């Protein structure tokens, strides 16, 4: 099926965007073409995704980073050493200190998870709100076969990455968590781009590049994470909004 997705609509789009604009007659043919193009889009891609969802998610992400920095920043800059590494070092340490280290690690992970869950929840709610608004505007159902297909393809890499991030946290390798979340999120975006606005493919590429930078320069990983999830979301959201939604551009949406 991806083959047909990629090759066949192109003829329609060529006709519509290259040939049609200069035409003044053949109303019927034009109408038929418009309809065919819309049907191909509507039936195979989830086009209700709103740019404002991206902006909102980006803002929420930045707030999450600021909160993490304020409350847990000092731990982040000790990374990627796990707390075990501190206590299992050359010096012989008492059992009590091992307990302390364990409790410190435990409370750090707990706090980080609370912030992360809150950030994710708020981002999802705002994305849902703006997408619902746009689907209403387009007169399309928000939850249909295309939405389902996009979500499934987005979730497979995302859940895998989330799982790995949790395992890294449990091992105390916290410095690599921002990098791995960026890497899997980028892959998820590229995977989902076949089933929604194609533009998010490039956002995915950017996230993957950032993930490597975050992994190599892990002491700056929180900052790089905020560029990927925060700044890039906002920039991309604005670009998509201007491209597709502003001035009633909704109708001109192409893939």
């Amino acid at each position: 099926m991806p083959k047909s997705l990629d090759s066949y609509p192109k003829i329609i789009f060529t006709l519509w965007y290259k040939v049609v604009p200069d035409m003044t007659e053949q109303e019927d043919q034009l109408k038929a073409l418009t309809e065919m193009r819309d049907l191909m889009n509507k039936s195979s891609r989830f086009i209700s995704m709103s740019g404002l969802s991206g902006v909102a998610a980006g803002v929420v992400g930045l707030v999450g980073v600021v909160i993490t920095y304020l409350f847990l920043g000092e731990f982040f800059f000790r990374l990627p050493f796990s707390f075990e590494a501190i206590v299992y070092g050359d010096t012989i340490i008492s059992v009590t200190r091992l307990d302390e280290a364990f409790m410190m690690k435990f409370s750090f992970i707990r706090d980080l998870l609370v912030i992360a869950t809150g950030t994710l929840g708020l981002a999802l709610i705002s994305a849902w709100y703006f997408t619902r608004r746009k689907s209403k505007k387009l007169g399309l159902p928000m939850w249909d076969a295309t939405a389902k297909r996009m979500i499934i393809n987005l979730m497979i890499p995302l859940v895998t990455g989330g799982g790995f991030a949790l395992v890294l946290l449990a091992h105390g390798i916290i410095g690599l968590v921002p990098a791995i979340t960026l890497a899997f999120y980028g892959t998820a975006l590229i995977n989902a781009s076949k089933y929604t606005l194609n533009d998010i493919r490039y956002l995915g590429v950017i996230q993957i590049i950032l993930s490597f930078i975050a992994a190599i320069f892990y002491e700056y990983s929180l900052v790089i994470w905020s560029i990927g999830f925060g700044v890039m979301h906002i920039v991309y959201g604005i670009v998509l909004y201007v491209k597709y939604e502003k001035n009633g551009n909704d109708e001109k949406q192409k893939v």
Partner: protein
Amino acid sequence: MGQDYFSKFNKVFENRIRLGVMSILMVNENVEFTRLKELLDVTDGNLASHLSALEKEGYVAVIKQFVNKKPNTSYAVTSSGKKAFNEHLNVLENLLKGRLKK
């Protein structure tokens, strides 16, 4: 010259619902009857008659199966359907390009 192109038009596709069905099936693996109806905004009977016309031509294949013990009908485009639809699009393209040059 334009007349030439028109004679090559595939008569089977001379209907907006059939064109719509083909467009949808070209970009999807298989599509349920109810979803086709929803996308094209037509009645059951109307859609069924056009689908059976396309089926008779061998352009569309019917997939009948049971989903949760309920009968479920979906449709997919056949390879000859793909070929015919592409040829139709090419004729359309040439026609529009030809008009453009004048």
